[in-house]
């Protein structure tokens, strides 16, 4: 499978990475001189910025080839189309108006290669009144309804940390790309997959809330460290951190009460009529219940609580920080983290496979490419440009 990636930062590159790590050939087109924006983003070893040492870039671009190309020039756009003729999938993340201006919109590209599958990943999509609006991750989670779900009542909503929305839209793009490949086998024709990051939030993550709103007038808001509807559905402090406590089933909650009551549901719970209904507790007495659990929680560490809960089959879990995650023994047994050797950084531990496929394993054969590392391979060996033409293209600031 041949993929052309004309995308920056996270969403498009993560889509490309998912394909590349399962064996697709992904050629990444980067802006001459500066390259992908993620090269400037970091983190950098010892906080020393360097375009070949950005952790974000290194992680997102494993197994890809890098070429530089100035697509704003007529020659650059022509070369891009040559590459497109040889490709199955074209991943891009530019504003729709920019693609139209460059003559790289789907209607134009379809004429170059009718089988091409164009995956367009943008904040708001290819249609609708906000199509041409500017948007970053925080704006997408705002429109998509994720932000109002996190934070404390009365205070500002919290956008998800890191760039979760970008990754989600990249993964959605990868699903759409393969779906379109299956469709192409039926029809012989390519198509454009339109992925809107805001819409990924609005459908997959918060869509069921709309059904509940229409059916019952319910509005999902933010309630700090808990979600009402059932108690417990909360994160509470313990001796050395926090524990995530969710029991949807009544028997799970009963097991926990028995655990803290040395085998029996404590009297203060059993004898209090206010605690009969867990929905009521969540709506009216949650603060009080948090306080009643606090003495037991504060006298145990999160690992102690986790191991007791696992023993009793109670689905509570510790809230780990990243250091604890990287050093987790379960993940070590599963060999989740992988060591990748890159010429500019030496060996480093990377987040690994999101899935283990028995026949077609995920693997990192090559580290992220250096900027333009594969210019000669792609332009000369694939497209047939001579070395001389290559240096002319370089002098003309095309590559």
């Amino acid at each position, binding site marked *: 499978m041949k993929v052309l990636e004309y995308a920056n930062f996270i969403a498009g590159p993560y889509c490309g990475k998912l394909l590349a790590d399962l064996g697709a050939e992904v050629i990444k087109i980067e802006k001459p001189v500066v390259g992908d924006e993620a090269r400037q983003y970091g983190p950098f070893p010892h906080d020393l910025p360097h375009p070949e040492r950005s952790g974000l870039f290194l992680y997102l671009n494993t197994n890809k080839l890098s070429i530089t190309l100035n697509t704003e020039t007529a020659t650059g756009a022509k070369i891009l189309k040559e590459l497109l003729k040889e490709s199955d999938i074209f991943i891009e993340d530019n504003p729709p108006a920019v693609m139209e201006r460059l003559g790289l919109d*789907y209607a134009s590209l379809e004429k170059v290669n009718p089988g091409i599958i164009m995956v367009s990943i943008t904040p708001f999509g290819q249609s609708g009144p906000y199509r041409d609006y500017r948007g970053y991750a925080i704006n997408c989670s705002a429109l998509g309804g994720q932000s109002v779900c996190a934070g404390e009542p009365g205070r500002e909503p919290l956008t*998800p940390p890191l760039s979760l929305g970008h990754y989600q839209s990249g993964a959605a793009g990868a699903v759409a790309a393969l779906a379109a490949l299956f469709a192409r086998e039926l*029809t012989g024709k390519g198509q454009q997959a339109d992925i809107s990051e805001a819409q990924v939030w609005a459908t997959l*993550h918060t869509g069921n809330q709309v059904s509940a709103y229409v059916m019952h007038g319910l509005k999902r808001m933010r309630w700090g460290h*808990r979600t009402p509807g059932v108690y417990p559905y909360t994160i509470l402090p313990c001796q050395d951190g926090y524990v995530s406590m969710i029991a949807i089933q009544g028997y799970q909650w009963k097991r926990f009460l028995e655990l803290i009551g040395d085998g029996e549901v404590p009297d203060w719970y059993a004898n209090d009529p206010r605690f009969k209904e867990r929905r009521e507790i969540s709506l009216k007495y949650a603060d009080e219940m948090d306080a009643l659990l606090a003495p037991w929680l504060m006298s145990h560490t999160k690992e102690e609580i986790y191991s007791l809960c696992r023993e009793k089959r109670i689905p509570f879990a510790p809230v780990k920080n*990243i250091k604890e*995650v990287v050093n987790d023994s379960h993940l070590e*047994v599963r060999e989740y983290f992988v060591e990748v050797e890159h010429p500019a950084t030496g060996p480093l531990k990377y987040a690994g496979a999101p899935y283990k496929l028995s*026949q077609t394993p995920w693997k990192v054969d090559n580290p992220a490419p250096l900027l333009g590392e594969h210019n000669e391979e792609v332009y000369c060996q694939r497209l047939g440009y001579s070395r001389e033409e290559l240096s002319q293209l370089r002098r003309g600031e095309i590559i």
Partner: protein
Amino acid sequence: MNQYPLQGYRVINFGWVFAGPYIASMLGDLGAEVIKVETRSRLDSMRLSPDNLDREPDRDPWFHSGVRNQLSISIDMDQPQAIPVLKDLISISDVVVENFSPRVMIEHGLDYDSLAEKNPGIIMVSLPAAGQYGPLRDAQTYGPSLTGLAGVDSMVGYYGERALGLQQAYADVNSALHGAFAALAALYYRQRTGKGQYIDLAQLEAVISIAGEAIMEYVMNGRVLGTLGNRHPTMCPHNNYRCKGEDKWVSIAVKTEEEWKGFCQAMGNPPWTKEERFADRYSRLRKQEELDRLVSQWTINYTDYEVMEILQKFGVAAVPCLDTEGRFFDPHLQERQTYLEVEHPTTGVDWVANTTWRLSENPTEIRYRSPLLGEHNSYVFKELLGMPEEEIARLEAEKVIY
């Protein structure tokens, strides 16, 4: 007639709350025939979600939205007689999805090896919390706890304050997306080789995979990120700001110097924007609390939509923070048919989430509304499997089909 990308493929979904049903719905949205295996003896708690105020399994709003383009058969896999029926069904199918604890499918003789014996092309996707092996193999969790285990929840909270967590089934959706991709990749491989395969998707690992930069921050510099609030490493302003009205907020993000100039201009260039403490991005990042206060004093005079219109005209990223009702009525989400009206026998009309992706050649639709429990028993047991009526009646009487 419309052709769907996964036309002709059949998926058997053993999944329940949420990851399993979600991946199955994604494959269903793409045109596969998805059959959900469930039973009255042990209801999928997605049919009795906290938002199901009627406590009626066929009237659950989460289920109506999240489990569509799926058919339902009611058969209790804890009854030994159910197993051969399920195996027959899997032998004429392409993909099996499940998200039980790892021991469950093995105990029922429905593990990959047993299924592949009868159907070597079968692709099985298992999405347990922590994977098929390893010390946490039997871990039981809900999605929100998984973002805790994966380190993400520790970063959700106001800057420097306590961890609040995402409070959302983020991990389930994330696993479903990765699982759907892996299933399609495996189908693609099977087309060329005839070989099926097994996919072990630890939801925990799929979450960590989308936190790549935080992992790198620790690996490279030993730095552990705490609660981040709405702060961004390079953008400022970058926050949700209070607007006119009750609990109304607008998200604003300013990245480039050009955007900062546009932002100042849009606000009418108030004198404070000229002050030295906000002169460049470095200074603004250092003084972001002061800056946020001043921005709020401006946004509070306008509605969230007014701020969006004013700022977007100057090329500044500003979008309202929409709540459930706000999303339902937003003109952009409406025009893109983000939510669809679907008839349902128990409620009349529902609004459910539309497919996430828009494919130009395969228009989205909900071919099958969310199924009633066991609604498709007759189609599956009689038509697909050709079971005699007496046999079906007997299994019903013995509460195997139940």
